[in-house]
């Protein structure tokens, strides 16, 4: 079991591997709150390569959404962010607003979480989909409108011209998710971040949306899926990183991680699926305002060693190319 030098999560360098699109290095996000600093994300390293589909899995509060938001600079002003996120020549964390605005929607796009209010209620959806095209000056306004209609038909809307004149509240949850996907894809970005695309959708709709994402985000386009839905991750992703209490605790090829999880938390996660017998992990994840000194999963871990309580494990590299943050793999 070898330790990596700086614990960078990623597939080991192989000849002719696709180029790195986004390199998250040492990302730390702390929120200042009245009760003290809240460490939402604690030193995450991730490389996203061109054409790859990566899933970031974790329960709510694990820091996965914050990671996604950090990429596009969408965190609130009270967030203290450290580390670098390299994209091309830029460090997205220190880039000027102008640069960020050029990248957002155009080169890196986000499929927002489908809450009831993710779309502007007083704007027709056709206009909302056409907007990124117009903003980024990719084509003139009438062409943008036509493109919006074309995208709508591609995403399964029966009467796209009519749909484009409607308002968000006139659509169901599943249709709104499609609109959000359309918004993200319309400028043909290189990287698409999907934040909980299946939240709140019933099984049938969820399946359709997942298939849609799979067909739309293919080829050279990179997908960064943020979810707690293991099924979605296994369907869509090549690689999976599991987050717990603000850190990546396991990372590797999706099939391998899900069939043979190495980290006790991942094991617990999979065991808690209905298909595996619905065994919940006892206890609760630590509050980001008061994190334990040693391994953060120690309290709930069935395989905890003595040193787990006081030493904090690094991300260790196993022989099979998996990275695990656990002393058992030291």
């Amino acid at each position, binding site marked *: 079991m070898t330790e990596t030098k700086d614990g960078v999560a990623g597939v080991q360098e192989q000849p002719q591997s696709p180029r790195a699109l986004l390199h998250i290095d040492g990302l730390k996000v702390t929120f200042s709150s009245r009760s003290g600093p809240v460490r939402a994300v604690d030193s995450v390293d991730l490389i996203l390569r061109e054409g790859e589909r990566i899933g970031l899995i974790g329960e709510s509060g694990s820091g996965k959404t914050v990671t996604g938001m950090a990429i596009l600079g969408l965190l609130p002003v009270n967030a203290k962010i450290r580390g670098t996120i390299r994209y091309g020549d830029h460090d997205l964390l220190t880039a000027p607003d102008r640069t960020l605005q050029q990248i957002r929607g155009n080169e890196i796009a986000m499929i927002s979480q489908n809450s009831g209010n993710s779309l502007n*209620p007083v704007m027709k959806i056709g206009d909302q989909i056409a907007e990124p095209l117009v903003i980024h000056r990719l084509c003139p306004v009438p062409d943008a409108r036509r493109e919006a209609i074309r995208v709508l038909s591609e995403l399964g809307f029966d009467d796209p011209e009519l749909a484009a004149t409607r308002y968000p509240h006139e659509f169901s949850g599943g249709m709104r998710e499609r609109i959000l996907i359309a918004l993200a894809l319309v400028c043909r970005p290189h990287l698409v971040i999907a934040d909980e695309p299946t939240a709140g959708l019933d099984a049938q709709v969820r399946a359709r949306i997942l298939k849609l994402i799979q067909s739309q985000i293919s080829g050279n386009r990179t997908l960064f899926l943020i979810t707690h839905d293991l099924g979605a991750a296994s369907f869509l992703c090549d690689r999976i990183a599991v987050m717990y209490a603000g850190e990546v605790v396991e990372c590797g090829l999706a099939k391998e991680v899900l069939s043979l999880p190495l980290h006790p938390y991942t094991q617990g996660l999979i065991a808690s699926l209905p298909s595996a017998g619905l065994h919940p992990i006892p206890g609760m994840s630590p509050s980001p305002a008061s994190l334990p000194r040693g391994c953060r999963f120690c309290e709930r871990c069935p395989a905890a060693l003595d040193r787990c309580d006081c030493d904090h494990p690094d991300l260790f590299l196993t022989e099979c190319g998996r990275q695990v943050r656990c002393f058992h793999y030291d």
Partner: protein
Amino acid sequence: MISRRYLLLRLCYSGASFIVCVTITFFLLHLMPGDYITNYLLSLSNTLPKEAVAQFREQFGLNLPITQQYVLYLENILHGQWGYSYAYGQPVLSMIFDKLCWSLVLLIPATILGILIGTVIGAWSGWKSGGKKDFAIFNIMIVIRAIPEFWWAIMAVMIFAFYLQWFPLGGYASISVLSTGLDFFDVLHHALLPIILMTFFIATGNYYVMRNSMIAVIGEDYITTARAKGLDEQTILWRHALKNALLPMITITTFQCAAIIMGNIFIETVFSWPGIGYLTTQALTNRDLPLLEGIFLLDSLITIGAMLVADVLSSAIDPRIRIGIDE
């Protein structure tokens, strides 16, 4: 756009409100100690011969049973016959309309300016909420609002009219009017201070609502979506945030316009400005019930009308509320 049934329903409610108002005024008139005739006649002469009282009573239908009187009263109101003032002996409605014009001289500029200023500053403040500038403006607005209107008026008169002598102490025109007739600039000079004060007050109300509305909007998810699309802050503010934030303003603003039409009692009284507010104060001093009731009825008509218009407008404009019972 809006279903007819909804409109009809709202009209019924408005009608009901007005009927309630008229009923209230009717009962008040009848609960008066002494009755309407004796009180009215007292304004015409000091002595009340019994035959005159009996004759008037019959003419005005005060001998009839009360339900018939109520119907008569209702009819009169609807025909614009709102009774006669005790103190002046003149028809109430015409007195009110006379003074209304003067009130409007103050109200129209103040309302327009106040709404504009309040909304713009409120939008900006809401957008920048949490920042130092917002904090400063917000607290200034609280202070402005906490100081009662009449005190603002008194202070303004004291400082600007008495000590600095920039403005006259009150009234709507100088004495010279008696010989030269009304001069536009003279009236303007008299009106400026009250207009400025009213503008302040109207602006603070609009500011507060607009700011709250804007804050609610910027917390919404579609703003994050807009940002994720790569829109710059200005575009987000004008195209996405503002439209949504303005929706609740429509109701408030319509309502405000109406509330304000009835004249601002305090400012008019302090400045001796001969508008409806001033009339109200005088009516109160004279215990002139018909006049007060007339003012009340007109006020309620305008308020009820404004609520109706506001309701209809906001359902016409907000695409979310276009669901009528018909569809």
